[in-house]
């Protein structure tokens, strides 16, 4: 065992000095390798953080949302509907919600308008004539607390609001385009009579009960459509995974190119390198020793590139808000949220990433390494 360790130490020592002796070639390799890791790691860190963010958002949303359907389309909840639901066992709380979209022609963007829940704590309530807005919107329209802004409603009337507050950056992905206003203002702006709601939120204590409750709802109110939080979560999960997968497939080209590059580098040994291996073989290195030495070389390069690339990607995603591909991966609204993702590092993801980079490199270099290692030991004698 001790001999084995001493031997590996000696081989690593030689490898390090041999890497240092061919700085230019190896730096080139390292650079390309790091770039690949950086690209893939950025994609993965980014989607993973988005996924986490979405899950965070959904954590606070109600377990079930009930929409009313008319002719297969989402319609307002009429007065008395809430009562018609009646008591369903397992439902802790039910409540009508008011929200909708408004298109702002000035900045060509859609806003989400919401009235805070009637039961929300006083601090989150918005007084009549006031609004609380998301940070992205504040940026787009150049608004600050205390400013006045007017919107023309869909009925043609002009409404003016005072900005009471701008929502904090922290959760910008959710609140970027959000406008909170009082219930009375909301009803007046959209012309929704009292008693009508957009949809109904149900809180369910026991997650195991959710499916039963949804089934009962569908039975009691055939014109309703229950939407389950878990379902949304699942959809999100697969959409994000899918996006990540698609990007990876698109990047497959570059991984492949990288593998070819690695193959190139590994098989295109310079005359000097070939001579060196020949000398090593002649003075008593065995084919297996040369393969091991080359293996250490690959391992050192891989680990360095992986570390550098991953750290760079981490900084890129969490410090510089993934500026390189924000438009590709996000981009569902005109107001690009300039939000900072909460840093998440996931072991499984690191493993997957490691696989996508180190695996192709290793596959590409095995045969060239072997070819180099089987140099005839007597080659140096034959001149």
């Amino acid at each position, binding site marked *: 065992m001790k*001999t084995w360790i001493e031997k590996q130490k*000696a081989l690593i020592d*030689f490898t390090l000095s041999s890497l240092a002796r061919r700085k230019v070639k190896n730096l080139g390799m390292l650079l390309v390798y790091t770039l690949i890791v950086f690209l893939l790691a950025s994609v993965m860190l980014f989607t993973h953080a988005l996924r986490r963010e979405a899950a965070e958002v959904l954590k606070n949303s109600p377990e079930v949302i009930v929409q009313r359907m008319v002719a297969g389309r989402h319609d307002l909840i009429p007065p008395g509907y809430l009562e018609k639901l009646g008591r369903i066992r397992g439902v802790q709380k039910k409540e009508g919600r008011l929200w909708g979209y408004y298109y702002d022609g000035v900045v060509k963007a859609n806003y989400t308008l919401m009235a805070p829940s009637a039961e929300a704590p006083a601090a989150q309530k918005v007084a009549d004539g006031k609004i609380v807005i998301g940070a992205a919107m504040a940026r787009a329209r150049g608004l600050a607390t205390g400013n006045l802004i007017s919107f023309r409603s869909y009925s043609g009337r002009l409404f003016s609001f005072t900005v009471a507050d701008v929502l904090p950056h922290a959760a910008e992905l959710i609140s970027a385009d959000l406008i909170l206003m009082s219930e009375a203002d909301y009803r007046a702006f959209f012309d929704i009579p009292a008693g009508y709601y957009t949809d109904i939120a149900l809180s369910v204590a026991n997650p195991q009960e959710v499916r039963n409750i949804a089934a009962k709802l569908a039975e009691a109110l055939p014109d309703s459509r229950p939407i389950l939080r878990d379902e949304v979560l699942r959809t999100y999960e697969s959409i994000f995974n899918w996006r990540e997968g698609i990007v990876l497939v698109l990047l497959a080209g570059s991984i492949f190119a990288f593998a070819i590059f690695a193959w190139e580098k590994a098989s295109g040994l310079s005359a000097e390198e070939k001579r060196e291996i020949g000398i090593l073989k*002649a003075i008593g290195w*065995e084919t297996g020793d040369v393969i091991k030495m080359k293996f250490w070389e690959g391992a050192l390069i891989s680990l360095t590139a992986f570390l550098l690339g991953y750290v760079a990607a981490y900084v890129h995603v969490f410090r510089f808000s993934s500026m390189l591909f924000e438009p590709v991966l996000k981009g569902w609204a005109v107001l690009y949220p300039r939000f900072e993702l909460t840093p998440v590092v996931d072991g499984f993801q690191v493993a997957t990433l490691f696989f996508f980079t180190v695996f192709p490199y290793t596959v590409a270099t095995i045969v060239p390494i072997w070819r180099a290692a089987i140099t005839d030991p007597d080659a140096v004698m034959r001149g």
Partner: protein
Amino acid sequence: MIKLTNIRKAYNQGRDNEFWALNGIDLNIEPRRVTALCGPSGSGKSTLLTIVGCLARPTSGRVHLKERDLSGLPERFLTDVRRSTFGFIFQQFNLIKGLTARDNVMLPAYPLGGDWRALHARAEGLLDTLRLGHRLSSRVEWLSGGEQQRVAIARALINDPEVVIADEPTANLDTALSREFLTILENLKQQGKTILLTSHDPLVIESSVVDTVVTLRDGRLVEGK
């Protein structure tokens, strides 16, 4: 010490340019003596050297080291025998550029996995005896031809081999340096090493250090001294 029986070696076997470098060699190399192989270039002396030194396997015939038959050994075991029994000095010295003299000397010991510090001490000791103590950490390409050869000799001795094999050792040396080499050879012989070398150089072949001269031509032995 080393016994060769009916050694034949072919290159490019089975192809049009098939070529038999050795054609039935029987040779016995005595221990603790200096044997020189001479002959014109292309006579097969280097090939014979590679077979004796376990760098290559004969196409047919037997190689015995002491009592052990090495003929059918795969490369892995042949290497094992080679690095414990033989030390090599090549015509071009074949040092690795960019490494220091000491690192070059230590190279053959790396795969053995011995103690790192002891290895350092051994390499430095060898370089000291060859009057290279002051060039320990110089890169080999900065050394003179004679110094390079002494580094190569130190490298050949690092694993304390019983047999030292030298291929045209004086081909790149002037007369003074060649004489110096012969002195080193004399020392090695006195230490009890068996030495086998190839040479055209009359200075070497006629020197008193050499006990036996074997002449080759066209892959066969011609005569002995």
